[in-house]
């Protein structure tokens, strides 16, 4: 990836604004949908008292889950103004405006005071940031001691086949993802403790199924106009097939990572 961080964020965020992308991926863009969001938030110990930061919050679907299902207060930030507008509108419609706020910001420069959050979530977006170490450093800084980070993302254990290197590959965040151990090391480098990584490849199987269904639906209803699909989108059905076999061969997968900001005991009272 050669473009600068900001450009990546904006080009990628721009991609997510395309109606076709939402049509294919569903309202919650990332693999696993809101089910995985709930799992991620649970693993990160989100509670009704938590103050949660959702980095790259997109249309605010996860923020709504965090506010309604967990009762937490949530701050979403995203680089796309269009997404943010939708996030704000949907949070108002869900009656959670008092529990949520949305800020336009780049993950590389978070506009929050240090130690101001209990939990930071970053779903399916960390591997898109050009400098993952810097992004994790930003997350570490805004978390209080004892706070948790929760990440869901792709991992890559083998080079991406050429057929997946196109735009769809990028939509699916595959290109440029680190390996599972890469995430572990990056989290440790950023100063996090108790790094835990769990593979959740079921989310990808679910997502591929969904996209297939949607493509079929769109094809039968003749809704896919050539104009709506970007040029380098490739043949979706073939890309999906390649992606599936790549995942099954262990080349890539999806994971959930959690880690803790070190907290020293108030007073260690051993004898």
């Amino acid at each position, binding site marked *: 990836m050669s473009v600068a961080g900001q450009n990546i964020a904006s080009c990628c965020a721009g991609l997510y604004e395309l109606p076709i992308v939402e049509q294919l991926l569903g309202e919650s863009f990332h693999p696993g949908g809101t089910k995985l969001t*709930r799992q991620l938030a*649970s*693993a990160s110990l989100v*509670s009704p008292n938590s103050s949660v930061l959702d980095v790259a919050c997109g249309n605010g679907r996860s923020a709504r889950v965090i506010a*309604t299902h967990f009762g937490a207060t949530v701050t979403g930030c995203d680089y796309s103004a269009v997404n943010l507008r939708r996030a704000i509108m949907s949070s108002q419609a869900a009656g959670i405006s008092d529990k949520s706020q949305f800020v336009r910001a780049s993950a590389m420069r978070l506009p929050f005071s240090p130690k101001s959050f209990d939990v930071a979530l970053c779903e399916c977006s960390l591997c898109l940031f050009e400098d993952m170490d810097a992004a994790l450093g930003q997350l570490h800084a805004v978390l209080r001691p*004892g706070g948790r980070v929760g990440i869901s993302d792709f991992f890559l254990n083998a080079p991406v086949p050429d057929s997946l290197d196109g735009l769809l590959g990028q939509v699916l965040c595959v290109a440029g993802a680190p390996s599972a151990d890469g995430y572990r090391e990056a989290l440790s480098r950023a100063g996090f403790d108790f790094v*835990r990584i769990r*593979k959740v490849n079921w989310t990808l199987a679910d997502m591929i199924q969904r996209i297939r269904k949607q493509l079929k639906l769109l094809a039968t209803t003749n809704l896919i106009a050539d104009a709506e699909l970007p040029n380098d989108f490739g043949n979706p059905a073939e890309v999906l097939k390649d992606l599936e076999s790549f995942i099954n061969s262990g080349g890539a997968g999806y994971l959930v990572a959690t880690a803790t900001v070190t907290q020293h005991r*108030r007073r260690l009272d051993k004898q």
Partner: protein
Amino acid sequence: MLKRCPEHGAERVLMADDIGYYKLARETFIKTPEQVIAPNTPARYGCPYDCGICPDHEQHGCTLLIEVTDNCNLRCPTCYAGSGPERQTHRSLEQIERMLDRAVANEGEPSIIQISGGEPTMHPEFFEILERVRQRPVGHLMVNTNGIRIANEDGFAERLAEFSPGLEIYLQFDSFRPEVLKTLRGTNLRTTHARAVERLNASGIHTTLVATIRRGLNDDEMGEIIDYATAQPCVRGVTFQPVQAAGRLEGYESGYNCGRDRLTLTEIRRRILEQCPVFAPEDLIPVPCHPDHLAMAYALKLDSGLVPLTGLVDPEFLIEGGGATISYEKEPAVREHFLNLFSTHHSVDSQTDAMSGFLDKLQSAPPQKLGYENIFRILIVEFIDAQGFDLRSIRKTCVHIVHPDGKRVIPFDTYNLLYRDGLESLLLEPLRKREFMPLKGPISLARYGAAKDEPT
């Protein structure tokens, strides 16, 4: 939970603040109950007015308490039994034997008999009582104590040690802070508890530390208590119990207030996970015989600290295997399974990240050195009180108290609410005699300003 009373109206009570975990407890971690050999009382008035055990109670007692005295050398502001120095009734040996025989009749071979009170060590024939327990087919003998006699009396711990193995001290241990101990126990027991643990260490008596947790008082100390427990050779585990609103409940500003003072199991669980990040959420799981009120975590206690085990065990095994018991590690099958986890690690999905981290840590301690002594248990026991009273759940309680009449065995939870001492005639009898009052219409959710829940 929304509940209502024809007399007092409707009320909304927090049962858990973690939907995911609560659902796990209610839907996944459910074991087929095991009942007592024969119930002692008929189901006549309807639950919970028939306790004794009645045929409707789904769970046998995995821990049976025998309260040998009402006397205590403390007068704790928090005491579900309302014990104190002013109460002088010690039960006679004959009566205690009758109670023990009831326990044996109900359970066949009771897995745990807990000698309790009052302060059981205040009983003039305390050691004779232990002997009488020993004469019966009892799996494990537990003594529930504040540790004062162990700490202050030379030779007391040594005499206790004569009952090892098979004896476990259930030692009150709430806090490291004098002001907290003063609020909970009426006096600063800091050095007393430490000295008791020292002596138990010296005598090698298996000990579980028991912390009564009160919101805003000591709920930030659980991690420290676990750290401390890990460093004590005699300590095999820690049990955390949120205050049950029953008996004596003093020291609350203008009385116990459900909305302000109630602390649920899921809140305790999260605080443990926060304060002890070595445990992941999947390491602290529901106990399948009473999943919504008991939670457990097992770990290996090594020189380098705790290595959680529960997350590595297939939940199916805990739900299907072993008997119904609060002390899983006492089940031979479960114990074997835990120990096998590190001797035959190929039986576990070696791809899991937890497992590889686990094996890394194990390299510091060669497997042949590990044994039952290395298994460490964290338990959360949330007793049901009037606030969170749930008829479905109360039938699954498995900590029971043998009534002093020697004829009945009553769940700990209902005993403290309705059956203890004068409560039975004062509270229970009028309730039993009361005519059925039908309730009108459904409970309105809107009245409680319930948050607009999205179907997620």
